[in-house]
């Protein structure tokens, strides 16, 4: 297509008519979104983030229910084909029994988690915890985070430590709404925590690394040159800085690697927690800081 003087004038007119108008709208919208999603001083997210999460959480819950229902239908049809030769009452009894077994298994699992937590809390009497269910995992490829069903209304604050029932570090509260919170996991690229390594309690920093995040691992760094580390060394939080209580189990050293320049080295840490199996977590709302 020839793009002569007439075309150039049309393009200028087009840019003036639509481009400027759109730019003003976009900049205004970006400012509004930026301000409305900004985290407040008390750690709570902005109004727009709160509204979006209020919309998102029930939708994700509903979709999850639909998926469960469809799985239930699939299971039912499968059983129907299998049991068609048997009588109707036996089939119903079986379905009912299966439902009860499923419910009992879920209750038993939760019971075990709570009992384990109770045992852990008996050893750590200063912890004030809040249990929460994971409602959804973040869809982004660039972070490792999930949303939980409790928020500021339950006394949770930004930066609170999140653990499993047996006291393994899961992550940290990164964003907060009234009845929801986003947890940044231990492998997230923005994670950092002071830790102690091995029997000699060498101080180091646990930091997120994108490449390791994809392997479900994280990085141990910032230790002194004469430090000796071994694979299999266990890592616990140091409690320094006040964000995490001391003694929370983080994981173990699985590998030692040198940095790109070869001048220093870091350790690869396999977290103790299996993030893919998590369904319920416990937030440490308060604890005694040991200096």
């Amino acid at each position: 297509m020839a793009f002569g003087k007439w075309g150039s004038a049309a393009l200028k007119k087009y840019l003036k008519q639509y481009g400027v108008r759109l730019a003003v709208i976009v900049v205004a919208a970006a400012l509004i979104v930026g301000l409305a999603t900004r985290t407040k001083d008390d750690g709570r997210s902005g109004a727009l983030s709160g509204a979006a999460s209020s919309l998102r959480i029930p939708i994700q819950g509903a979709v999850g229910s639909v998926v469960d229902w469809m799985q239930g239908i699939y299971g039912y049809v499968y059983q129907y084909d299998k049991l068609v030769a048997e009588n109707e009452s036996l089939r119903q009894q079986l379905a009912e029994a299966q439902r009860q077994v499923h419910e009992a298994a879920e209750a038993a699992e939760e019971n075990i988690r709570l009992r384990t937590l109770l045992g852990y809390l008996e050893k750590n009497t200063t912890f004030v915890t809040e249990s929460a269910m994971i409602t959804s995992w973040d869809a982004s490829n660039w972070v490792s985070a999930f949303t939980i069903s409790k928020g500021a209304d339950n006394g949770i604050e930004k930066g609170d430590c999140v653990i499993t029932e047996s006291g393994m570090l899961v992550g940290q509260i990164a964003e907060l709404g009234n009845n929801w919170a986003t947890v940044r996991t231990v492998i997230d690229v923005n994670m950092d925590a002071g830790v102690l390594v091995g029997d000699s309690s060498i101080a180091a920093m646990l930091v997120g690394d994108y490449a390791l995040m994809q392997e479900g691992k994280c990085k141990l760094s910032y230790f002194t040159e004469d430090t000796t580390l071994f694979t299999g060394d266990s890592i616990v939080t140091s409690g320094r800085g006040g964000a995490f209580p001391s003694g929370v189990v983080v994981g173990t050293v699985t590998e030692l690697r040198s940095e790109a320049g070869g001048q220093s080295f870091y350790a690869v840490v396999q977290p103790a927690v299996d993030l893919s199996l998590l369904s319920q977590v416990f937030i440490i709302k308060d604890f005694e800081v040991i200096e």
Partner: protein
Amino acid sequence: MKLQLSDLKLDELWLRIRRGVLYMLYLLGFLLLQNVVFSHIAPLGVRAMFMPALVVAVALFEGGYRGGLFGLAAGIACDLFLAGQRVLFTLTFPVMGFAVGLLADFFLNRRFFTYAVFAVAALFLSAFAQMFSLLFYQGQGSWALWRTAVLQTLWSVPFIFPAYYICRIFPWKAEGAAPSPY
């Protein structure tokens, strides 16, 4: 003085509302598909992110201004639903929409091949925008970031087909009423 909307204006208003509602449903449908259904499917640890393909489709058929506005809506929705960024897509999607719409109004045809080229470019640009701060400000390993960006683009490519063909069957497209800047 008594103000009264003419039948013509009412018809136009109704068409605009219908068009807006259809595009909103189009956006919400794909947004839920991406963030709720396909967020559970991550081959090689990477999930699809196909919203930019929708912005390109709408921009191609609707032109720069409406494409930009659709991009703005899609960008806000993506920023609110995905963790890790605040206004990244709110700023980048409208630019993509306007640029593709402008090109479509002046230079491009609206066939699938043209769309596919720009949609894939938009998918990759979005992935690049997402990894930008990790790469340049946080000093994260570049190989892993590029790998994720490429895989995210690849996994999103199948969705450009429904994005294009659904957008194309909207009723005003069937009438052949392509928008024109003239």
